[in-house]
């Protein structure tokens, strides 16, 4: 596998400025608060996990980060550029890609086409060039195809290259979605419950993929996950939410001993 990745150890502590910084983010729907005044930082090339009970505002927070929801207050600073809010397209152009809690694949398309769609922003030819297969289009077709085929190998999806994703098993669909996000060669990858509904073995596999992505591509990852054993082993950094507020932030070890977290999340509710 050679995708131009840089070697680095994910545990190495860096003193670089954070890749992503959220400051005082608040979000409400029709006056109902979903997120209240949340701030945290995500260090480049590390795996950060958002945890918290259902309805804590985790997905909403991801949606704010990549521009699906526009927060009423706060600042999102990505790559040192502060934004009040972003559009999904702008976020994608900045290098943010994501997966969804309830798989949001393009069901009527094959695995290959889903992944190719992920390369959208890597293309420069116009649609007319593409329609008539002239100019830059054929060259791009080939290079994108090569890249995507490598990804398919990487994610072990070869058997289903031409299958419509709607007909695939759940676990495979999750992996295809991961691949689609990865096809964009993102700087920041947001994963919304990548292991929901999986059995232990599938979770194990998925964790391996996430780790491999982080290691080989150097991609910064923010993920939401409920299974604490997975989270503790996978992530370098945890942010804990409850009722739209941040109640914990730190390394797995720190969070594990945070009394508020234990009360809200680990102790009383589970």
């Amino acid at each position, binding site marked *: 596998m050679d995708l131009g990745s840089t070697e680095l150890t994910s545990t190495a502590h860096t003193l670089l400025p954070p890749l992503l910084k959220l400051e005082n983010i608040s979000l409400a729907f029709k006056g109902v608060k979903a997120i209240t005044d949340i701030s945290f930082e995500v260090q480049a090339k590390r795996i950060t996990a958002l945890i918290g009970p259902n309805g804590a505002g985790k997905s909403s927070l991801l949606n704010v980060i990549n*521009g699906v929801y526009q927060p009423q207050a706060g600042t999102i600073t990505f790559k040192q550029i502060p934004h009040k809010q972003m559009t999904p*397209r702008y976020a994608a152009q900045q290098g943010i*890609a994501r997966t969804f809690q309830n798989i*949001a694949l393009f069901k*009527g398309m094959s695995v290959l086409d889903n992944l190719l769609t992920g390369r959208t922003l890597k293309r420069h030819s116009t649609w007319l060039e593409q329609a008539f*297969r002239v100019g830059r289009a054929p060259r791009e077709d080939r290079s994108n195809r090569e890249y995507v085929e490598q990804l398919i190998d990487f994610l072990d999806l070869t058997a289903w290259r031409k299958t419509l994703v709607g007909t695939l098993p759940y676990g495979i669909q999750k992996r295809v979605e991961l691949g689609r996000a990865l096809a964009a060669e993102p700087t920041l990858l947001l994963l919304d419950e990548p292991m929901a509904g999986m059995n232990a073995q599938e979770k194990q596999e998925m964790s391996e993929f996430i780790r491999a992505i982080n290691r080989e591509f150097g991609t910064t990852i923010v993920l939401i996950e409920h299974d604490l054993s997975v989270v503790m082993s996978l992530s370098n950094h945890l942010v804990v939410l409850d009722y739209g507020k941040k109640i914990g932030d730190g390394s797995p070890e720190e969070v594990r001993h945070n009394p508020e977290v234990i009360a809200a999340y680990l102790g009383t509710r589970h």
Partner: protein
Amino acid sequence: MLFTEAGQLATSYKAEQKLFRLRQDYVAFGILLFLAFVALPYWGSDYWFNAILIPFLVLSLAGLGLNLLTGYAGQLSLGSAAFMAVGAFATYNLELRIPDLPLLFSILGGGLFAAASSVIFGLPSARIKGFYLIVSTLAAQFFIQWLFTKFSWFSNGSTSGVITAPPLVMAGYDFSTPVGRYLLTLSIVASLFLIARNLVRSELGRHWMAVRDRDTAAAVMGIPILKTKLLAFGMSGFILGIAGALWAFTYLGTVEPHGFDLTRSFQILFIIIIGGMGSLLGNFLGAAFIVLLPILLSQLIGLLPANHWVDIGQLENAQKIIFGGLIIFFLIKEPDGLARLWQRCRERARIWPLRY
């Protein structure tokens, strides 16, 4: 033999991106073209050209136009006929007002005008989704029909708003015989289908399907949603416009705005539901179905002995019921239409004589 694929492996991505991957497909396609361009003109009768083949081809094309928008890009439209009308009337006026413009350019121009109007009525898709969009397309349907009926400028001052075909002469060859009109229609339809095939397999085609399947996910991946939708409206309008021009000039020879009414829009929608949404072949199958079924039914009814217990004319109402029933049936049992059925047959034939 026709379905033996063993050993035909694509050895490069380029090979895979060719028009057809399998040798048989090329052979079959060649035979089909030969049949359509050479054998049929030789064997067909006037009745076949005038009453079956030409409307079949034009409706297939119209189906393609709507299919790009609805089947591929997921934007429901009930205004297809309006854009056909724009195509027909624009072609007529281009031919009339720019005397030296070759016919083919007038038709293409008609397509462009239709594309432009389709994009305008597609603009609200920026804010509204799903079947709410039918409001915009119905607005197009009623407004455009009104426009052409109301202002006789569009029909060159004809008091009745009816336009008639310009002479079908192209490069000195007169296409006004039934065979000529058939060949002209066939050539245009075939070329547009080839372009459409390229298009739906290109990046734009993937964008359309992405917007159709999950527009939020598409936006998150950086697909420009509005531009993608408007391109679908534009391409759809372009093809519908050309279909409208052909409908008016190579099929009927004359047309009035009322000929492109809501019923026609429904008819085109039915073509893609029955034929198969998101399938190019489906347009042909759906159009064949919609052209042939009424004729078959009416012939069969004609074979019944006349009697006074059943009013023969009333029996034709059964046709409406059959159509409506089939729509429901297809939506329930085979949402992907005849094209999917055909694919199943092929898959079965491929492994024949084994069952699976």
